[in-house]
């Protein structure tokens, strides 16, 4: 599964994207965020306030309770500031 990061989430994690294999017990967006947070200091800094992190699955905004089933690209980013 491909993870992509933007803005300060990307900066804190220290990379723009990565391929990961999810453990079996990670089934939702919320579980993914909690699991990622334990992967190191950068992840911890990026995801400290996980509630504020926005997530898109295959280019569609999703809630944290959404299932990851069938996802091929998951994006994590801060609240948007375009327009």
């Amino acid at each position, binding site marked *: 599964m491909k993870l*992509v990061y933007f*803005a300060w989430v990307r900066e804190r994690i220290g990379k723009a994207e990565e391929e990961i294999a999810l453990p079996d017990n990670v089934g939702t967006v919320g579980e993914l965020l909690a699991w990622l947070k334990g992967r190191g200091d950068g992840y911890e800094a990026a995801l400290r306030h996980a509630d504020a992190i926005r997530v*898109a699955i295959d*280019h569609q*905004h999703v809630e944290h309770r959404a299932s990851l089933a069938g996802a091929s690209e998951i994006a994590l*980013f801060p*609240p948007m*500031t*375009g*327009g």
Partner: protein
Amino acid sequence: MTAPELRVSIQSDDFDTASEIAVLTQGRADIGAIVTFSGICRNEGGRLKALELEHYPGMAETEISRIAHQAAKRWPLTHLTIIHRYGMIRPGENIVLVVAASTHREAAFDAAAFLMDFLKTRAPFWKREHLKDGSEGDWVEAHEKDETSASRWSD
């Protein structure tokens, strides 16, 4: 109601508001009202050298098209143009343009305001400041009130 002509562009190049309006009105005489919104980079009291706009390629197009289709379903529009830039943008330059054309002014006004509210809160773009003193400034923070503005359209 016929579907409006739709133009969505995510680009780094600047654009010309005038010709975007002109294209729309050329050879048509059924448009009664055109509302445009131009979002322009401010200099923030002189301290800003540029805004850098990061975006999520692919999703930006998808999400903006989705918002455009929502507007087209909700209001009787003849045309809708949305242009959003990314990359380095200097004070005084365009960031975003929305053009909504309709036979009636209320539809054009409401659609343009709706589009801007949703571009602010749903389009995957992030602004970071670059300061005049050469330093890299902060990421611009999202405003609570933009969420509030967007929520007024849910019915």
